[in-house]
């Protein structure tokens, strides 16, 4: 039985053909993945199915019936539910309130909280999605918040569940949990549409996979009959070298050192304890670990957002006395943050303004406090070319760029600031393969130039591929040091969970 069919869907935006004659046919009780690079048209297609966009032309059939979906309300009535990439939750409301909002059980005009709580307990038991109905959503980890989202659409009777890049915000463990949930839901008769650009995940959980590229459907394949390489080729349109080329560079002098660094995070908890390491010229030092084991404390201290409560930081061989971002940067630090939207770019600003931030107060970009537009524009034009930023239009606002392009703008800015040390925190988070490849290439080039790189990442494959040495953070301390050639992902995994230690020689 077909759960959902779309026929000849075309969606035209001014200047862009986002969906070009798409035909899909999705069976009931299957996990159907839709993959494609950022900007390939996945999200547009899903928004059409969910009633947030109206297609320029084309037809949609739900359980064999031709339908018109003009709003999310229509979609809900047709038993289509969507877990958005950015959660549609109200942090200050309880789990129960979030789930029942819009369809509240009532006693007269009053909201019947007791019945609501009971109902939530029932469905959460039925689908094995454990939640505390009375807890406020703002106090929950992201993985559980996502569970609340899933419960919300299940309670509304959704039979077709759309997941828009659901793992982008999850830790690996949370992602595992989600996959179990998805399989369970499929086995109990629900239809799952899974949007992603992470091929590994797609290969783990899908039954069938549709590949989009530049708004066009490239093909639909059974998971058993394909592999990551083929998918990547279909997605990008050429062979993609996911393997990171080895770059042998002679390790040089120590550029950055950290000694006995101890950091208290904003919640007042000591998140990083007595951490010491060196990063050398021409070396990429990888920091592995499960999220929340001290990475953000380490990064915040290194960039100067938080003053450490103990220990010291040496940049370019000199101890930094006053730790703040300005001083860190003055001493040669470039910073690639994990959250480019909040920490990296000023989204309402144009590309040209974003690429000079941080140098805006220096010549030639400004003189006596007055910006020199000519210099800024010619600089931006050069960078847009050099980093292959598309569109080439330097007046485009950062907010209107895809994730990969935003990351390129960020790299263009950071790498043009005078630096000998790069602090890269999950530099490929949320990026598609093409953009990932680009980031890797840039980091390796920097390394060859003799720059010291500290790479903090949750992706083991990334660390294994790029790093020359690996430190594993567990509960705020370095639990071990190793090298990619001397370890395996399994061993690293055990270390990350604190189940294995490795002595360090410093």
């Amino acid at each position: 039985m077909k759960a959902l069919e779309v026929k000849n869907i075309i969606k035209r935006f001014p200047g862009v053909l986002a969906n070009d004659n798409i035909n899909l046919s999705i069976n009931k009780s299957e996990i159907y993945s839709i993959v494609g690079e950022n900007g390939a048209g996945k999200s547009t297609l899903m928004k059409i199915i969910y009633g947030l966009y109206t297609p320029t032309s084309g037809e949609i059939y739900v359980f064999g019936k031709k339908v018109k979906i003009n709003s999310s309300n229509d979609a809900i009535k047709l038993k289509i539910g969507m877990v958005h990439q950015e959660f549609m939750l109200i942090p200050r409301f309880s789990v129960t309130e979030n789930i029942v909002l819009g369809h509240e059980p009532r006693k007269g005009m009053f909201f019947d909280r007791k019945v609501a709580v009971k109902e939530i307990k029932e469905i959460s038991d039925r689908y094995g999605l454990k939640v505390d109905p009375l807890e406020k959503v703002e106090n929950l980890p992201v993985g559980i918040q996502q569970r609340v989202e899933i419960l919300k659409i299940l309670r509304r009777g959704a039979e077709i569940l759309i997941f828009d890049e659901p793992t982008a915000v999850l830790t690996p463990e949370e992602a595992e949990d989600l996959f179990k949930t998805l399989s369970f839901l499929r086995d109990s008769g629900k239809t799952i549409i899974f949007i992603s650009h992470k091929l590994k995940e797609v290969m783990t959980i899908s039954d069938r996979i549709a590949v989009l590229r530049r708004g066009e459907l490239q093909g639909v394949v059974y998971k058993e009959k394909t592999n990551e390489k083929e998918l990547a080729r279909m997605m990008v349109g050429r062979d993609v070298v996911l393997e990171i080329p080895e770059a042998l560079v002679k390790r040089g002098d120590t550029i950055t050192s950290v000694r006995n660094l101890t950091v208290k995070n904003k919640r007042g908890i000591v998140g990083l304890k007595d951490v010491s390491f060196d990063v050398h010229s021409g070396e990429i030092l990888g920091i592995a670990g499960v999220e929340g084991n001290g990475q953000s404390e380490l990064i915040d201290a290194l960039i100067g957002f938080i003053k450490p409560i103990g220990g010291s930081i040496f940049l370019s061989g000199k101890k930094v006395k006053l730790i703040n971002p300005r001083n860190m940067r003055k001493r040669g630090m470039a910073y690639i943050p994990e959250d480019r939207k909040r920490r990296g770019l000023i989204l309402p600003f144009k590309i040209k303004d974003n690429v000079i931030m941080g140098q805006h107060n220096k010549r030639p970009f400004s003189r006596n406090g007055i910006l020199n537009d000519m210099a800024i524009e010619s600089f931006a034009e050069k960078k847009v070319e050099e980093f292959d930023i598309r569109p080439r239009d330097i007046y485009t606002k950062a907010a209107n760029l895809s994730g990969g392009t935003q990351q390129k703008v960020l790299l263009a800015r950071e790498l043009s600031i005078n630096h000998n040390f790069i602090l890269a925190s999950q530099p490929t988070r949320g990026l598609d393969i093409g953009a990932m490849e680009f980031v890797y290439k840039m980091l390796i080039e920097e390394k060859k130039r003799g720059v010291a790189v500290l790479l903090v990442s949750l992706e083991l494959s990334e660390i294994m591929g790029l790093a020359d040495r690996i430190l594993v953070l567990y509960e705020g301390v370095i639990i071990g040091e190793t090298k990619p050639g001397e370890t395996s992902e399994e061993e690293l995994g055990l270390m990350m969970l604190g189940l294995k230690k490795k002595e360090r020689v410093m």
Partner: protein
Amino acid sequence: MNNMSLLNSSLSQTMDYAAPILFAALGGVISENAGVVNIALEGIMRFAAFFGVWGAFVSGTPWIGLLWGIVIGIVIGSLHAYITVKWAGDQIVSGVAINVMSMGIITYLLELIFKTTGYSPPVPYFGSSVNRIHLVFLKDIPFLGAFSNLTILVWFAIILTVVMHFVLYRTVLGLRIRSVGENPHAAETLGINVAGIKWFAVIMGSIFAAFGGMALSLGTLSSFTNAMANGKGFIGLAAMIFGKWTPFGAMAASLLFASAQVIQLLLQVAASGFAKGIPLGFYLALPYILTIGALIGVVGRAVAPAADGVPYKKES
């Protein structure tokens, strides 16, 4: 006057002063819980204070005045909603415009209708002895005696606070209002009529503010003076923030600000003997100084609804 009757009369006076502030604060509470900042409350109070007096003047009864005031509250509230909800306009700009407009229009109407500048002739009002709610049996009890001789508007402010609390935190409507103020996009995806809720909240809030204006001109006084609402709408907004956007919080804050007003009066009397040197202006400024002080103390901790003041546009 013995001590007890001084206590009771001071408390009763405090409530009298508090009522207009509380009405404005409650207007702010409902509107901002739905995500619309309404600094036009001040102007709406002025409009209603005048229209209430006008209605009472024409009809000879404050009840008709009350009706006129409510109607003008709805009209001005709709204007604010039209600009800020329908067109997602800037809420502060719209509010400022309405406040400025109230200055000009009402001053003009005052001259046009009553041929006076400064104040209207006296009209029948809720504060007159016949119109007050007399609860004689409470009269000699400490504290409760303060409730023995209130105007209907003060009683209404008290009742409205309780009702608002139940509506906001116990009813489906309240849950939806708050959801719209916290995350209108989420509310929209759940099929909640975001624009409808915002319109409703802004207009209800404006009606409350209208009551506040009339608590001045038909409750405390029996005429309109051109200085009205004299910043009471803004103090109401301060009370709303101080009360953390909740009805009971707003009530407590309004009472605090009003008591500063009463204490100020008492101080003036008490100090006339030994502190003649202190200028009158200092006493008059006291409640406002207290307002600022209270806000400095609390504002860091007060948390507004997450989408408060953010114009909402639907995805297309």
